[in-house]
């Protein structure tokens, strides 16, 4: 069992709905954006392409972050999800230097969205975020435990995301990768990400 995600760049419209529903689901503080969207432009006028690309932790099968973590706070679960045990993290940020995708975030101090005290939402949600530790996308482990898909998958307006077992050749995710020539980001680095993109 290896959880993976497929992001169809032909369906994706770069709306950032995934970026924000992740923030809402996980109550991430300011500056901690576990999922972001970048746009890549190429070509010369008028033959121009601009492709939206969502980025998040790649949940690599060969995760460099796990290798370098001195305390074992960052670890790979048996289902392939790369997770962080906040209680073990000492905030050295070695993992952030090691990650070639730059998808890890350090919370140095309490941050508020409005600077006028925490909103009720933040009071409720920031309990999950310790200061002085690193955090990132964890494929919404609490949702998976309830039999739900990650928030970004469930909410995507264009249904650009699929989630499932990459070890199962019959899963929707595996089929999409096969049928639509799914590819990984920076495959030459040998990290073997669990997130695949389908070409735009």
């Amino acid at each position: 069992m290896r959880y993976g995600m497929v992001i169809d760049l032909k369906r994706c419209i770069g709306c950032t709905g995934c970026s924000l529903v992740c923030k809402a689901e996980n109550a991430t503080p300011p500056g901690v954006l576990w999922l972001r969207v970048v746009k890549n432009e190429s070509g010369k006028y008028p033959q121009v392409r601009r492709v939206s690309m969502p980025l998040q932790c790649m949940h690599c099968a060969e995760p460099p972050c796990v290798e370098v973590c001195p305390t074992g706070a960052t670890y790979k679960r048996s289902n392939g999800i790369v997770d962080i045990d906040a209680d073990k993290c000492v905030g050295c940020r070695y993992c952030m230097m090691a990650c070639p995708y730059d998808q890890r975030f350090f919370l140095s101090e309490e941050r508020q969205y409005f600077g006028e005290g925490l909103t009720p939402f933040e009071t409720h949600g920031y309990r999950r975020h310790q200061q002085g530790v690193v955090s990132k996308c964890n494929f919404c482990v609490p949702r998976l435990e309830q039999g739900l898909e990650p928030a970004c998958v469930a909410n995507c307006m264009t249904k650009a995301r699929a989630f499932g077992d990459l070890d199962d050749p019959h899963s929707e995710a595996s089929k999409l990768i096969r049928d639509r020539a799914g590819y990984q980001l920076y495959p030459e680095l040998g990290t073997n990400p669990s997130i695949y993109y389908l070409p735009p």
Partner: protein
Amino acid sequence: MESAQVQDDRWIPTACGACYSVCALLVHRVNGTVVKIEGNPDSATNLGRLCPRGVSGIMTLYNPHRVDVPLKRTNPQKGLDIDPGWVEITWEEALEVVAARLKKIRQEDPRKLLLTGTVTTHDEVPFAKIFAMAFGTPNGWNSGAGNHCGTAEHLFGALLHASWSKQPDPDHCRYLLNFGTASGFGSYYCVSGMAQRIADARLRGMKHVAIDPFLSPSAEKADEWIPIRPGTDGALALALLYVLLHELNICDSDYLKHHTNGPYLIGDDGLYLRDAKEQLPLVWDPADGAAKPFNSATVRDFALEGEFSLDGARARPAFSLLKEHLKPFTPEWAEPITAIPAATIRRIAKEFGTEARIGSTIALDGKVLPYRPVAVMYFKGAQGHKNALLTCMALELLTEIVGASNVPGGLLGMNACSLGHPDTGGPKWIPHSDRDGLMVTGYWPNIPPPYPPKEVKEPETIDLRSMVPTCPGSSGALPVVMADPKRFKVPYEIEMNLHVGSNYLMTFANPKAVEAAFRNVFQVSFALFLDESTYLSDIVLPAASYLERLSHTADWMSSNSPVGEWCYHIRQPVVDPIAQRRSVCEVLLELAERMEMREDFYAFINLVLHLKEPYALDGANRYSWEEIVDRRHKSFFGEEHGLEWFKEHGLLKWPKKVEEVYWKPFSHARVPIYFEWFKPLGEKVKGMSQKLGIDLDTSAFQPLPEWRPCRSHRENGSDYDLYAIYYKFPMQTFSGTYDNPWLDEVSQIDRFAYRVAIHTETARRKGISEGDWMEIASVSSGNIIRGRAALTEGIHPEVIAIAGCGGHWSKFLPIANHEEKGLCFEWLMPVGLDNVDIPSLTQDQCVKVRVVKAKEQG
């Protein structure tokens, strides 16, 4: 980490209010706190998903900059950057003052009350409209008259599609010719639902051709992007029509004969020829060689071309006049205007005309229907010009000529035909026809619909609409008339503005000019935030946001998906209104009590909401808002589907019928391809304007399209070499979301959201590098705005593009108010009748600018 004790943990079905798509929500509330907003998977409208604004509503609910208590101004001086000197007052004092003012004005002259509303709420503003109706004023103005919405486009929606607006058929369209709209790409109507449906169409193989001055969020997803000079979409449409009719000989004769006024005979005066007895429009039956009334049972065929003689007078089918009229509009003519090569125009016409598959059919639900899988979409940008009426005409004719109107695969009115819930038959609206056989829309959000047109009358309203009945909604002329009613022979002045949520000062045009028109009016605002428009308020009332209130209606004509199922959502509060916020509708009911206006208010509520017995309101009783909402739901959906049922189930849905979605083949109503009544109407408008000593340019009231340059095409001073356009992007809704810190966070990451897109070579020529501050001066408004450059190859070299409505200056919006956070395009737009398309009262949104690198960088 300790987990808090959970006493209350519920998911509550309700409806979003961040824009007019009204997506269905499931909102998670834990111990009284909203912790998550998700799409309701049961909804046939948004299919369980939400746009970025929808998921971010939590940060609007809990934003500490929200208006929490009623406020009164203490500074007698009003101006767009003059602090009003707000002090807190009690609701009691606020309501007393407001009711007293309203009562006084109603006694003196109810016309002195203006209602201004936002387009994003479909409960508060329509309910306020009913209040204003009962009050007795004809004066109302939505932000939609401004830079952000369609005006003429809605007129043609009514005339051709029996709807406020349209969508491409996401199930069957194969070729989307998209003049700059964002349907399916994060804006427009039915945002979340259409995003999925259009993505499905994209994967299905629908080709998307984007005609757009900028590689916008929508054009990015197109198969082909064709850059166009702003304001010239009408010229392109005319050239495409020329190629279809004069080079390729492609048109849907059958459709034209039976579903349009194409065969109607036109005399040399440009009007229908009518039979002597019944005065019905005549057609020529070539099978019998005779003229007959259009609806005669003896008609065997309709002539679309030819020249005939009727009692010595020349008679020609309307279609032949159109065809003749199009002769000059060749691709070679269009090329220098649009900056699109003639060869490209010919190729697109051929692709479009071929893909229209004229003559083909498809069987749906056992019914064989015409299959025309091409859709021509256009909205705010393409129609927002001085020549709006004529441009819309040309764009619509592309659809009509190939018969792709309200049939499978084509352009669908949203939503033209409703046969009602299977149990109750409500709500019901069906396009029908008038005596001339021309289509009359079954439902319209304003009273009356634009066709048949109201007579031209002396000014009754403060916006010229009583003189120009072809304005379908809010008027682009309102601030001009309001600033000088005497000039327009309006026999009163606006004294009070009942202001419901619209940031009109920022979202219409030049804020300075708008401020001048509104400065001396007593303004009572229902507001979520102290935005720029509240700088002119006298009293501000804290409004409950959509998570804090009950609505009598969440949905409206255009929020439902064009296909699939009808789906009516409840909007119920997830939390009690925070602080002293109150529901606008409840406050209006209370004001009506204080003004002793209950009987009138209830009478209009019954009429407008179609409350049938036993649900109609009796003026002798007083009803709570809950009771009114309950009655409204039962009246439409039956005794078992009242408020309690909706609170529990969240929505009521039922399948759409084929004859609702694709209504045209089932209807005898004809739509115009020759706009016969425009010219005589224009003459009446001219006559009235001359009688009153007002100079109105009515020359665009024509039955057939042409292209006329906008002011910006003629302003060719050497410095003013670029066109500025504005476009929508998915991270913000109009001006209202810029104080939401989540949306701000993603907007800061996006290259273009807060900056000004400019062509790399154009920038280089001007010595501008990425991120440089630029000064943008409008030749027509005289104002200058600043913004940072975002260089791109994805823009026409003569264009700069500004996203959304940033550039906030209200000091009460600390997140939005920052020089790095976008620009307010409206500063570039002048206010004046020169800037308005007179036949539709659409504002010209096309501006010529001078762009230089700012001396002060940062």
